[in-house]
């Protein structure tokens, strides 16, 4: 038994269809439980009031935004090394989810930042690197969409993903450096480790687990869709071949 047997599209589809209902249900239960717990059964922060509770959406989505890119990187590597089509399609399927997570993180961040810092947006290193990550996602998706031949697109996007990852990390450090340069250390950074009280951390972990499962379910679902789309394309090409 090797995990590579799931690289067969048929095997992937049958297996993922079996596990997906469980994933959907458990992610829905965890997210709603975590959010209800977080919104209604935690105390207000003495400084931030109830505003702080947006953390239960903000942190899990930010986490997933980064993890989605990381998953794409791993899937791209698998495609480059082992040439499993499902892997390339999984990377393609994950990108739009990553974008949505990035946008949720940015928007909830803005909603949180407005009452806290008095501004919707600041060029804080963390915010800025998320914006740059968003741009990387856009480029990656645009490249997938622009190329007809699926194998060419898979090859080019995976190389872009590898190169992009290096530059994304570089940008993260560059942005850190750049803002210190501007603000002489007076930063708006949200230091979660210090801020989050125990009363908040448990529902936060529940939400994070829920988001992770939701992400997994969405990736499996979308990969299945991509596989079927490829299958249709292949069948149509076959028809042309026979004609």
């Amino acid at each position, binding site marked *: 038994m090797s995990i590579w047997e799931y690289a067969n599209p048929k095997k992937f589809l049958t297996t993922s269809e079996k596990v997906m209902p469980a994933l959907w249900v458990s992610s829905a239960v965890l997210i709603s439980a975590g959010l209800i717990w977080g919104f209604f059964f935690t105390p207000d922060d003495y400084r931030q009031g109830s505003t702080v509770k947006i953390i239960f959406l903000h942190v899990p989505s930010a986490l997933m935004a980064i993890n989605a890119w990381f998953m794409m990187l791993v899937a791209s590597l698998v495609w480059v090394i082992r040439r499993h089509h499902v892997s390339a399609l999984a990377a393609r399927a994950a990108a739009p989810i990553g974008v949505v997570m990035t946008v949720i993180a940015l928007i909830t961040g803005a909603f949180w930042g407005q009452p806290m810092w008095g501004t919707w947006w600041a060029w804080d290193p963390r915010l800025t690197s998320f914006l*740059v990550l968003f*741009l*990387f996602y*856009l*480029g990656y998706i*645009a*490249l997938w969409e*622009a*190329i007809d031949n699926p194998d*060419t697109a898979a*090859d*080019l996007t995976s*190389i*872009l993903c*590898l*190169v*992009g990852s290096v*530059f*994304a990390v*570089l*940008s993260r*450090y*560059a*942005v850190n*450096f*750049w803002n210190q*340069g501007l603000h002489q250390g007076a930063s708006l950074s949200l230091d979660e480790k210090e801020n989050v009280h125990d009363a908040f951390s448990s529902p936060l972990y529940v939400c994070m687990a829920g988001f992770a499962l939701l992400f997994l379910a969405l990736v499996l679902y979308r990969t299945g869709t991509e596989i079927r789309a490829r299958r249709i394309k292949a069948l149509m090409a076959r028809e042309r071949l026979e004609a």
Partner: protein
Amino acid sequence: MIALLLRDLKLALRAGGGFGLGLAFFLIVTVMVPFSVGPQSELLSRIAPGVLWLGALLACLLSLDRLLALDWEDGSLDLLATAPLPLESIVTIKALAHWITTGLPLVLAAPVLGVLLNLPAPGFLWLVISLLLGTPALSVIGTFGAALTVGLKRGGLLMSLLVMPLYVPTLIFGSEVARRGAEDMAVQTPLLLLAGISAASIALLPFASAAVLRVNLR
């Protein structure tokens, strides 16, 4: 290899080669800035390093879509790929030719445009040095973007979308050097980081560009 470099330079200089277009674009962008932000010389001199860096970056970007697309259209790229040169050196030479015809003129023109924007006196040296160190990275990274989009019709816009995020670290460190230089602050750290990015890009990215080009050629 030298033959390829000389041919590319010759092509750039001949009619329709596009030499000087990037330079003219740089000039135009710089001239437009005071129209948009107002003529106060204090404001201009504060934003001059950043504006000049951004202008140089955009001028570089603008000339990238010709870098490989012309050779792709007339079939030279196919023939070069079957020639005894490895693709890695072909893309390196192409990037070098791009830098000589676009990057270097921008470096030389930047001080003149600095005068237009009231760049403070200590800034000129650091502006030139930062551009000299940073524009090779812009050319090499741009070559990667051009290789990614070479087979696409109207790939220019997509290429900008792909290349711009990759330009972020270079832009940040490059303009930081120029800005600190203009404000008479220590420039060593960003200068070293900028040089590091350039060196690493020149050393590693040609492999990615060649790999991408191989995919596009098949």
